């Protein structure tokens, strides 16, 4: 009777072990699939974030570069024509509101145009004639210039066509 029980146990064990041998293959395939899916999905998400972010920088910086190059190609660039160019080039409105200040060291009116804190250009204009005096593209090349600290900025002409007439006049006086 005891021998019969041992035999039954052994045969059951045969079946169990055979099942394990068959199933472990599927288990490893499944584990491998999960490991691959997780690793590649993580990598994909990270890469997508980086690549999309860089594409955004390329596309938006191209707008700024085009703005400054087109401005330099104008026959007599000034604050008005610069502002007009801004609107033409930035049809999708990526640029924020331009920051206009007076540079105390030169007395020029400076206009900072960019699409975020890191990427911008600063155009300088003569206050009397509104003529373009130069454009600083340092931020696009990785060495951002400091914007002059001038709290009178809000009173200055931004050069925009839809600025108030008073503000526009004040820049040309």
């Amino acid at each position, binding site marked *: 009777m005891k021998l019969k029980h041992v035999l039954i146990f052994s045969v059951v064990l*045969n079946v169990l072990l055979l099942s394990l041998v068959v199933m472990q293959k599927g288990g*490893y395939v499944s584990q491998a699939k999960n490991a691959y899916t997780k690793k590649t999905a993580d990598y*994909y998400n990270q890469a997508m974030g980086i690549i999309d972010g860089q*594409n955004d920088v*390329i596309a938006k910086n191209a707008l700024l570069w085009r703005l400054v190059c087109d401005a330099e190609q104008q026959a007599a660039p000034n604050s008005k024509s610069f502002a007009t160019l801004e609107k033409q080039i930035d049809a999708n409105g990526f640029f924020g509101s331009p920051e206009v200040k007076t540079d105390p060291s030169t007395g020029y009116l400076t206009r900072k145009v960019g699409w975020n804190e890191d990427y911008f250009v600063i155009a300088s204009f003569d206050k009397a004639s509104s003529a373009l005096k130069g454009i600083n593209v340092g931020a696009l090349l990785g060495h951002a210039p400091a914007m002059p600290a001038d709290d009178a900025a809000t009173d200055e002409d931004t050069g925009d066509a839809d600025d108030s007439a008073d503000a526009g006049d004040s820049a040309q006086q």
Partner: protein
Amino acid sequence: MDAKKMKIILGVSIAVNVVLIVLMFTLKSGYKEQAQKAVSVSTKAYTDQVAKVVNAQNTFISTSNMIWQLTFETLSGDRSESAFDARLAAIDTGHQLQVSKASGKTTIACGAGCSVSYQFAGGNLVKADYAALYSFAPESEFSVMAPPAFNFQMK
């Protein structure tokens, strides 16, 4: 069933159990190795593909920055051809840019189907054409596909 037959069957059963246990551990080791290798190879194939896109994008950023700088400085400064050449040499110190010159026109490649040109006449710039550079759509050039399905057949 008599005791003798039972003993024979039990002996065979125990032997089969031993064989199955040995087989299970042997296969386990082989399966694990195959699975790890398959994951490693498939993952690397994908990450290599992504890295290629990232590298191409970085190269474009570097190249386009140099071309934009060259274009801007040329338009805003001395527009003579000699000044342009000097500027180009100063900016492209690593000779990364693909520059070609023909009949007063200097062309610089900015990618597949993308080039910027500078036309000189009488030693001075008459036209800079950088439309291809600002029209370049990076999202259509630099994008990664989602990882392909894991294709693994255990041997």
